[in-house]
């Protein structure tokens, strides 16, 4: 059951990316494909991050083992889409010109936030391999993965800065992140009380 969920999710997460590449290569992304690539990869990463966090919440209510297996593909694919988003920005939006990209990184809040989000995710992606929890010790590994919360806050701030109009989706995602964070903090407090 666990491996079915894991591999099924890998394929399901890969699918929108494959469709996007196929549309790109066959000229179906409109007259300015680079911009569509940039927006879609960013949106996929954001939605998968939300799914990862949301799954954690569901798990806290329903501790069913296969659910645990579903988190890793969602997290890894969040990172992959975020990396693709950054690569599209660097190579296509900035034309691969490092001088221009560096000027944007120095001056622009949304770029700083985006890079911060990616860097925060990097240790999570690196330690997503099977042996990582054993190598680090499960407690440390678990603590390290609390980085997903600052990541989520930085990423949603990035989304606010790049949205010209604060649409319902952005407002809804922000409220959802705040709710999930609050519920996580509440659960942690309860556990601490129990332990004490």
């Amino acid at each position, binding site marked *: 059951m666990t491996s079915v969920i894991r591999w099924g999710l890998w394929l399901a997460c890969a699918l929108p990316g494959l469709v996007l590449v196929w549309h790109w290569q066959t000229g179906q992304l*409109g*007259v300015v494909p*680079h*911009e569509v690539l940039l927006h879609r990869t960013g949106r996929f990463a954001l939605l998968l991050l939300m799914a990862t966090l949301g799954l954690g919440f569901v798990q806290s209510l329903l501790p069913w083992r296969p659910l645990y297996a579903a988190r890793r593909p969602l997290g890894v694919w969040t990172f992959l889409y975020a990396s693709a988003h950054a690569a599209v920005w660097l190579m296509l*939006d900035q*034309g691969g010109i490092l001088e221009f990209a560096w000027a*944007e990184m120095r001056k*622009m809040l*949304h770029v700083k936030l985006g890079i911060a989000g990616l860097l925060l995710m990097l240790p999570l992606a690196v330690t997503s391999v099977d042996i990582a929890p054993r190598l680090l010790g499960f407690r440390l590994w678990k603590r390290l993965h609390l980085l997903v919360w600052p990541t989520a806050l930085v990423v949603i701030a990035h989304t606010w800065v790049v949205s010209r*109009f604060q649409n319902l989706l952005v407002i809804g995602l922000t409220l959802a992140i705040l709710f999930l964070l609050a519920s996580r903090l509440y659960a942690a407090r309860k556990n601490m009380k129990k332990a004490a």
Partner: protein
Amino acid sequence: QSLPAVAPGPFSTDEPLTSFDVATGYCNFFEFGPAKDDPSQHAHALQTNPWSIEIDGLVDNPGPIAMEDLLARFPLEERIYRLRCVEAWSMVIPWNGFALADLLAHVGVKSDARYVRFEAFDDTSIMPRAAQGLLDWPYVEALRLDEATHPLTLLAAGMYGEVMPNQNGAPIRLVVPWKYGFKSIKSIKRISVLAEQPMPTWHEKAPREYGFYANVNPTVRHPRWHQATERRLHDGTRIRTEMFNGYGDLVADLYAGMDLETHY
């Protein structure tokens, strides 16, 4: 729909043109929605025939001018201009138009006039997606009188030798190539010559982001992105942005002595 043969005019760049498909498929025309492909999908609802421009304010001959009369009186020229959007993308477009100065001379501008205000069409029945309160309609833009009468400033009724496509501002629009694209108002219904500085739509909505002058200036950043470079949409390259969009030789004098950090 092709225009009759259009003679080449002055000030044209010899840079490669943006393709017609890109120039007509990637537009900001918020009356038809905020996405870049909204105008090409929805602007067909715009009825451009008959069309007339109401001219009022400090002019000797106020009143409406019909589109046919404008085209009969002012022969169209081809002007190949760079277009730099405030969103840091750019195109090179062959406009077919005539100098706004010729129209203003024709209607006679009174001596106390200082500004020209432009108002776009406003028909909520064909702009359902714009009723979301994105902006206040009708869209308004304005120029100082000396900017409006500058020989670069164009009223365009076509592009690429074609009658102006609806999504690009049919039947007639402004083109001010040294300013960010939002100054070049589309589908003009009213031109008013005034003594006081009018309030343009974007300037009113977000004065920190969209100045009254909105001259292309690589050294003054937009609050959310910087303006030093731009994406050329026809080849996807990123290039450096030029002061006054490369038209400094022709227009810098208009702003002599002004602090362009303040008057952005």
